[in-house]
C-alpha cells in the first residue's frame, strides 16, 4: 500500500489532514489518485427565482457528499476561476492527465450510517472509457495509461464506497474516513483475455472541504472527469478544455 505522498496544498486552509492509501492495480496497470483529495458535504440547493439564484439549505435527508481524488496537485485552497490564465491552464492540464476519480451525489445519511454504496457502468462501444454510472451515486473516472500498455482496460467499472466515519460539524469542518473500491472487469462486448482488470482499493481520510470554495473548484474538476470518462484514454489532454459547470455568485452565474 502506498500512502499519500503530499499533504494537500494549502492544507491549513482546505484539508488539515489528507491521506489516500492505494492498494492494488489493474493487472499491473496502476490507478493511483493519491496526491489530492476533496470531500464536500453538499448542503445547499440553488433555487432559481425569476432569474435570480438563491442558495437554500437542504434538509439533512437531502444532503449529499461529493468526493474527488487525483494524482495531480492543484492548489486546493485557491478559487481556481480567479487564477491567472496560465496557472488555470496548468491545473486543467494536470487534472486531464492525472488518475482522476469523481464521486458525486452520494447520499449523506447512508454514507454516515456506514452503508456500502455502489455504482457501476460499462464503457460505451467497447472502448476503455467509463461513463457516469447508475447506482447509489454518480461517478466519473479518468485513468492514465502507459503508452506501453497495448491492450484495453476492462470496460465495466464498479465503484464501492463505505465510510468508517463521516463527521460534519454544525457550522464548518468535519472529516471523512472511507474505503473506496474501484473494480474493472471485462465489459460484455470486449474480447476475453489481456484486459486490465482487477480491484484498486483507496483508503481516504480527509477533513471536509469548505463547501462553497470546494464546489466552485469541483465545477472545473467534474466536467474534465466526465469528458475523460466518456472519451477514455484516447482523449489525451483534450479534456483540459472542458467547459466548467456554472457557479452561482452574488454577482451572477459564472
Amino acid at each position, binding site marked *: 500500500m502506498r500512502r499519500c505522498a503530499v499533504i494537500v496544498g494549502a492544507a491549513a486552509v482546505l484539508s488539515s489532514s489528507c491521506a489516500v492509501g492505494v492498494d492494488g492495480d489493474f493487472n499491473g496497470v496502476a490507478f493511483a489518485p493519491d496526491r489530492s483529495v476533496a470531500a464536500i458535504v453538499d448542503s445547499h440547493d440553488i433555487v432559481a427565482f425569476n432569474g*435570480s*439564484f438563491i442558495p437554500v439549505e437542504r434538509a439533512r435527508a437531502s444532503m449529499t457528499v461529493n468526493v474527488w481524488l487525483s494524482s495531480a496537485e492543484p492548489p486546493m485552497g485557491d478559487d481556481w*476561476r*480567479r487564477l*491567472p*490564465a496560465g496557472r488555470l491552464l496548468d491545473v486543467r492540464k494536470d487534472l486531464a492527465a492525472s488518475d482522476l476519480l469523481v464521486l458525486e451525489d452520494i447520499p449523506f445519511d447512508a454514507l454516515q450510517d456506514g452503508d456500502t454504496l455502489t455504482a457501476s457502468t460499462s464503457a460505451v462501444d467497447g472502448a476503455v472509457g467509463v461513463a457516469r454510472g447508475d447506482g447509489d451515486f454518480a461517478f466519473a473516472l479518468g485513468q492514465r495509461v502507459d503508452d506501453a500498455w497495448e491492450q484495453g482496460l476492462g470496460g465495466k467499472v464498479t465503484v464501492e464506497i463505505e465510510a468508517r466515519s463521516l463527521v460534519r460539524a454544525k457550522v464548518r469542518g468535519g472529516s471523512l474516513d472511507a474505503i473506496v473500491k474501484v473494480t474493472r472487469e471485462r465489459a460484455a462486448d470486449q474480447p476475453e483475455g489481456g484486459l486490465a482488470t482487477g480491484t484498486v482499493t483507496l483508503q481516504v481520510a480527509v477533513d471536509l472541504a*469548505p463547501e462553497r*470554495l470546494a464546489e466552485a473548484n469541483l465545477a472545473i474538476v467534474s466536467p474534465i472527469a466526465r469528458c475523460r470518462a466518456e472519451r477514455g484514454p484516447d482523449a489525451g489532454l483534450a479534456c483540459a478544455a472542458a467547459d466548467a459547470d456554472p457557479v452561482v455568485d452574488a*454577482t451572477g452565474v459564472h
Partner: protein
Amino acid sequence: MRLAVCVCALPWLVVGCRFGEASFETSFDDVGFDAGGTVFSYADSRDVALVENADPPVAVAMTWVVFDPGSDLSDLDGASLFGMAHEMSVRDALAIVFARQGAIEAGSTTSVTKDGTDVVEGADLDFSLYLAPERLDAGSTYAEVVPLGSRRTLDVIVDSVSFTDADAGVSGTLTLTFEAVAGRDPGIAREGTITGSFRAPLVEERTAEKNLALLQAQSPVLPLPLAGRGTP
C-alpha cells in the same frame, strides 16, 4: 486622445498604456466595480453586408482589461490573447449603447430601465453589466450569496461628444440603480447604485468589433460587437 495613464503592465495585460478612462463607486459593501482599464466608443455604422447606417448606434465599452482597442489584437501571441480573454471573464465590464449617434448631445440625459434583460422603459439607450465572479476562499459561505435587485435603471449624462474632431469620443457620468421588485425578486435582494464617469475615445468600427470578438471568444461577457441589423 489616447494616452491617459501608463501603467506597469502585468504579463497578460500586454499593453502598457490605458485607453480612455473611467472610475466608479458602488453603494454596496461587498461589491466593487472596476471597468476603467480600457474605455472606448465606436459607431456601429455598417452591418454585416457593409450597408451604411447614416445614424448608427454608438457603443461604449468599458473593461478592466487593459488593451489598445485601436490596434488589431490578433497580432498578439496566443498566450497573451488567451490571458486577456480569461481576464475578461473574471473582471468587471460595462457596455452602454446609444441608439442613435445623432441624438447624443452634450448636456443631455438619457435613461433606460430593464428588468433582467428586458427593457421596460427607454428606447434611446441600452446597457449590459458584467460583474466579476467573487473571489472565494475557505471562509466563503452560501449565506453571502444575496442577489442584487433585478430592476436596473441607467442614467447617463453626456458631458461632451464629438465624432469629427481629432479627439473624437464621448464622455459623461452615469448612475446605475439596482431596485428590488416585489413579487419578482426574492425579499433579500439588495438595492443600491454604481456611479461613475467615463471618457471613451472613438475607435474605428472594424478594429473595435474585431478586438471585442477576439477578447470574448472563450466566454461572452458583453453583447459587443452588436448583432448585425436584421440578425435575430
